[in-house]
């Protein structure tokens, strides 16, 4: 088991190196004189905004409407993680285990239905 995680760790290192190499290839090509020449221009390095001069800052606070989805996501993701080991052993389990899982889901679903009722999932 540890063996396979070790292999995965080594593969992660190889994958990082390969991905970094992809980004570095054009730089290497430019060093040997094959890539595109740098042709600096002030307009080229401005931020694209449909041809207009960019107005104001980008990183401002604004209501992006996803906060409540994130809260619901946390509840359901934890639920899903709990359901994985349950599902694995369900093959030799009975009605009681199924009922316990249904109870767990229903507890989370009460919050979900409350959120639905409150109109969290509606864009207003």
């Amino acid at each position, binding site marked *: 088991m540890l063996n396979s995680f070790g292999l995965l760790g080594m593969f992660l290192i*190889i994958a990082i190196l390969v991905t970094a190499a992809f980004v570095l290839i054009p730089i290497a090509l430019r060093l040997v004189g094959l890539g595109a*020449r740098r042709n600096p221009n002030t307009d080229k390095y401005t931020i694209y905004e449909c041809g207009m001069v960019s107005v104001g800052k980008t990183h401002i606070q604004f209501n992006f409407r996803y906060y409540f*989805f994130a809260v*619901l996501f946390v509840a359901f993701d934890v639920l899903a993680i709990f359901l994985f080991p349950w599902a694995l052993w369900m093959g030799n389990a009975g009605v009681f285990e199924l009922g316990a*899982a249904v109870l767990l889901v229903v507890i989370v679903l009460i919050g979900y239905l409350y959120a639905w009722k409150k109109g969290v999932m509606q864009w207003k």
Partner: protein
Amino acid sequence: MNSWILDNFWAHFAVFTIVILAFVIIGVMAFIYVERRGFGPFQLRRGPNRAGPFGILQPIADAIKVLLKEDVVPDRADKVLHTLGPVIVFLPVLLIFAVIPFHGQIGGLIANLNVGIVYVAAISSLGVVGVFMAGWGSENKYSLIAAMRVVGAMISYEIPLVLSLVAVVLATGSLSMNGIATGHPLPMILLMPLGFLIFLAASMAEINRGPFDLLEADSELVAGFHIEYSGMKFAMFYLAEYGHALAMSAVAATVFMKGWVGPWDAYLGWFWFILKTLMIFVLLVWLRVTFPRMRIDQMMSFAWKFLLPMALINLLVVGIQVVAFGGDIPWWMMFINFGLAGVLILGWSKFFRPGGARVEYQV
């Protein structure tokens, strides 16, 4: 398979690392060709047909073009995040393939993980971090909105995706990819069609394709999170998008269509695997061409009001069947499940329509 390669630790690792890298690069190029060529007839035009016979060299021509392009970084952008974004987007794509069984009983190519499906579900959603880094680091308003959207969409569609995988684990009684592929005599696409449809819709949203590609909605956000990218960094996003589609097709083929299992799978296992992956991908292309792009509020309510209840009902149905038949669902249950899936989808779409949502503008 040569036993010397399998027995030697380092030879095993080196050979299969090269196999995975080659498979991803060649597979992505083939998929780009299949999709662009397939779009032609769908949209009553020809598609790429100049580079090589039937335009088959088009992906290579594109690769050479992006390698030779100038790399433009806006001077207001965060240089570190702007560079790291494409790297982190592409990394999970490679990592998913480490545990996918291509052929026979050896399991995943790099490691035969006994928690393979959890690993896939965890790794496949990591790419969103890179997308958000790219969108935030570009300092562009469109790309920031696109990055916010992709985070919202990704966390919404993560839940139905994982819950449909839980239902598969329930029916097969295994967490490893190989155990799922061989766990039940029937492919899961027949045993739980509802679960497959939920997985398909959720994974299409997860890989930002088809009707769910709101993070690069060209008509509203110019190009989404990769407006400020050019050259090889842009190509990395392109590569990651198709690589993720390839990975999700491979996962769907393994989990729902029994992967390498088929006639003469001692020799032809890899062939069945690639054939099934290609079938799923062609289905993805077909769906992308057929459906118009959704609105973002429709997309969110589709995830939370349609897919999530459906996924929970699917889980409950499979759980009841597993308890009723003692862990081994008989093959004739598939007729009942098909009927149930049809009734549930039609009934719930009468009860709730994503198209019915309204946006009220504040003046």
